[in-house]
């Protein structure tokens, strides 16, 4: 067991956790932030992507015990004061989601892309999102949504 103090979506959290607890496990099972999803066991699907200290990571591959002192943002923390983030707005406008299961990871990953590159090309968007699997949309409208968000940010 280890005690960690982290900040999740702007709130300070202090928890005693098991050594093998993953960040996704901490978020979902201990903090009840179930917007972060688990879609595979092999770090392939990307449904669990969150931001740690501003960078997107797959939260199923991070041990919570290693993250003492970090700042974590999940899909629940992306909108501010009830106003959707431009990426969330764009996914809605362009119908970039269907069943919604991959969406939290997809959105968090796309937000990080635009931090790194303001106006990515279609190919750059597709390459960046290669680690996020979506079974519903065929990615067409996801790419359109990221471009739409880029034009608004």
């Amino acid at each position, binding site marked *: 067991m280890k005690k960690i103090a982290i900040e999740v979506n702007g709130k300070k959290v202090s928890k005693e956790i098991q050594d093998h607890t993953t960040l996704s496990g901490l978020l979902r099972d201990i903090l009840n932030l*179930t917007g972060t999803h688990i879609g*595979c066991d092999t770090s392939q699907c990307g449904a669990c992507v969150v931001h740690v200290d501003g960078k997107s990571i797959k939260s199923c591959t991070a041990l919570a015990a290693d993250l003492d002192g970090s700042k974590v943002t999940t899909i*629940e923390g992306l909108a501010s004061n009830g106003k959707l983030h431009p990426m969330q707005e764009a996914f809605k406008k362009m119908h970039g989601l269907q069943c*919604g299961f991959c969406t939290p990871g997809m959105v968090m990953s796309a937000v990080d892309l635009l931090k790194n590159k303001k106006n990515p090309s279609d190919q750059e968007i597709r390459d960046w999102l290669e680690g996020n*699997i979506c079974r519903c949309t*065929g990615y067409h409208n996801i790419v359109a949504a990221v471009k739409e968000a880029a034009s608004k940010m």
Partner: protein
Amino acid sequence: MASLVGSRVERKEDKRFLTGKGRYTSDINIANQTYAIFIRSPHARAKIKKIDTSKALKSSGVVEILTGEHIAQDKIGGLIAGWAIRSEDGSEMKCPANPPLAKDSVNFVGDPVAVVFAETLDEARAAADLVKVDYKVLKAVSNLGEAMNSEAIHDGIDKNLCYDWLLGDRQKVKEAFEKADRIIKLDITNNRLIPNAMEPRACVIDYNTASEEITCYTTSQNPHLSRLIMSAFGGVAPENKLRVVAPDVGGGFGSKINLYNEEIVCSWASKKIERPIKWVAERTESFLTDTHGRDHITHAELAVTNDGKFLGFKNETIANLGAYARVFGTVTPTYLFGPCATGVYIMPAAYSNVKAVYTNTAPVDAYRGAGRPEATYTIERIVDKAAMELGMDPIEIRMKNFPTEFPFKQTLVHQIDSGDYVAGLNKAKEMADYDGFAARKKESESKGKLRGIGVTSYFEACGIAPSPVVMMLGCGVGLWESAEVRFNPTGQVTVYTGSHSHGQSHQTTFAQIAADELGVPIENIDVVHGDTDKGTFGMGTYGSRSLTVGGIAIVNACKKIVNKGKRIAAKMLEASPDEVDFKNGEFVVAKSNKKKTIGEVAFASYLPGVRDEVKSPLPEGDEPGLIESSFFDPANFSFPAGSHICEVEIDPETGHVKLDKYTAVDDFGTIVNPLIVEGQVHGGLAQGIGQALYENAQYDDSGQLITASYMDYTMPRADDLPDFNLGFTCTKATTNPLGVKGCGEAGTIAATPTVMNAVINALGGKEISLPATAEKVWKACKEMKKSNAKAA
């Protein structure tokens, strides 16, 4: 008020999904819940000699361990096939028992034999490792082609044959073939796929010891049907003591139609241990135990004249059912497949013969398109082969055999009410710049690349389905759909539907329909589904049926509301109901300015009396309230159709197939929400393209699934796919008041042959099997080079 049908309305469901507030089954936790881990067979075929749980039972945190013995003691029933298919000789199909926990024998890797319930997931896992199962391993039947000549897997099922089914007329086909100038022959394998909804299956069960009611939250496409099967066949509880809730469900694609072992076992066990239970599949469990799709071996023959007219078609198929026959397992390779085998063409004679066999692999059932992709793949591949052998253009040969008059009586079963196949193919040809292909091919060749173009024209029979027809064909239930529309006294509307959205956007599409019918702002309409305690019975969502069946039930319920509203408004306005018109949410007395809004009428309907200002007498014979329901049973299937064209560029040095351009032109009749329909087409295309280029479920000789993770099973990713170029034509369905046809499966049905035709075109007609992976294409390119060198 402008009509919402036809508008690109943004989705009502999006906000919760985009803010992490979706509520999927695995997000649900119930106080005092236990965690379930299933112990599954590591062998494809074995006898269970002994299960020793003694050590595991003493493990920390274990609440209970149950096996097939307990299931048998409690007389809990198993999983069923929903359709009874007869063989050509009239005999009934043969189905083995499929108990929720195997007691005597296991028949595929992943077949569950026992279950552990513990206080924590870690404890359940640790205890599961201590359960000792002693197996006598038998030789697995894992190869479809050899299954009929292998040892029988199930007692009493000779040759592993479930049925040997025929649709069509062998004699007529024989005569047609005798008249042919040429017989085109094709042998193909339609490879096995794994649906892979991104949300793994899960269930959370809550047993209420006071009311003795079991609530089963589950990842289902049809909660009402799951409840029915769990009650009537599983014997878990009477239907009135069983509530099945499918909350937000993360994709289904057919794999969540079935009721599964885990739902039955956990529901039964929750009552037994008097504790809530949570089970969530790991991804590998999903790979192993979700129903799979496709998996056919087909020999097809097409009889043609030298000028490219089709005379007859034969389709001889062996279909893999996997280890057990499940809900749509037996109908997918028969009535969902056979009738569509002749494609969009006038085909004077045809038959489809299907032998469905058992193997020691995961059960095969409906996967997006279900039977129709397999049929379309066969006919569209053989039509291309015919064009090549006859030296005709692939578009020309298709045009030559299209029907031009509708209704069109298709060869094997269907009476197609509407369509315009010529217009669809012409539009696709123009949008794809078909005529510019030769120049682009030259350009590719100048860079050392191969370029190919592929065409597919398809129709499908969906919107399943007319109950009298499906029941005559062997279905155990009728496939109508129900709806209930409720006005609150204060004017908001709740629409209950028996269909279920797991990505299809019912909350938006159905609200658009109701808004138009009732003249109520869409913001004031909520669509509710997925809870057997909230709505009336429903048949769920599959076979592109939600809008064409469920949507029409909503239309009909709304019409009943308006009719009752007219009677109430007439009384309120002192007119006769015949004089009252309803438009834009208002009841207006003809040739007057007397009117009442539907909100006022709803309010009045709940206050049938007179007090001060409130004067709202109900017409005689009418009961208070404004609630109506409807069960809609369609008169026919719906028949979407279209033509798709794609271009691929192949690098012969690596075998990499680049999907360069993809054009899809579809006819879905009236489109309620273009934004959503386009999304359905995009997603469908991705799955069809996945089969053509990437996806393949593979078992080894011992029956081990060697593609049981995302490291081994290739899912199409963002960088594998292009932007899609979509177009639409419209001939309205004549069999429903909205003129709508199903759109959910079309992309998947058309994309696989379109891409493969393009790949084979690029390879100069060289046959290649699904999927056209870089390795296979590279080998084909090498052989081409060799034979070209020889020829030179």
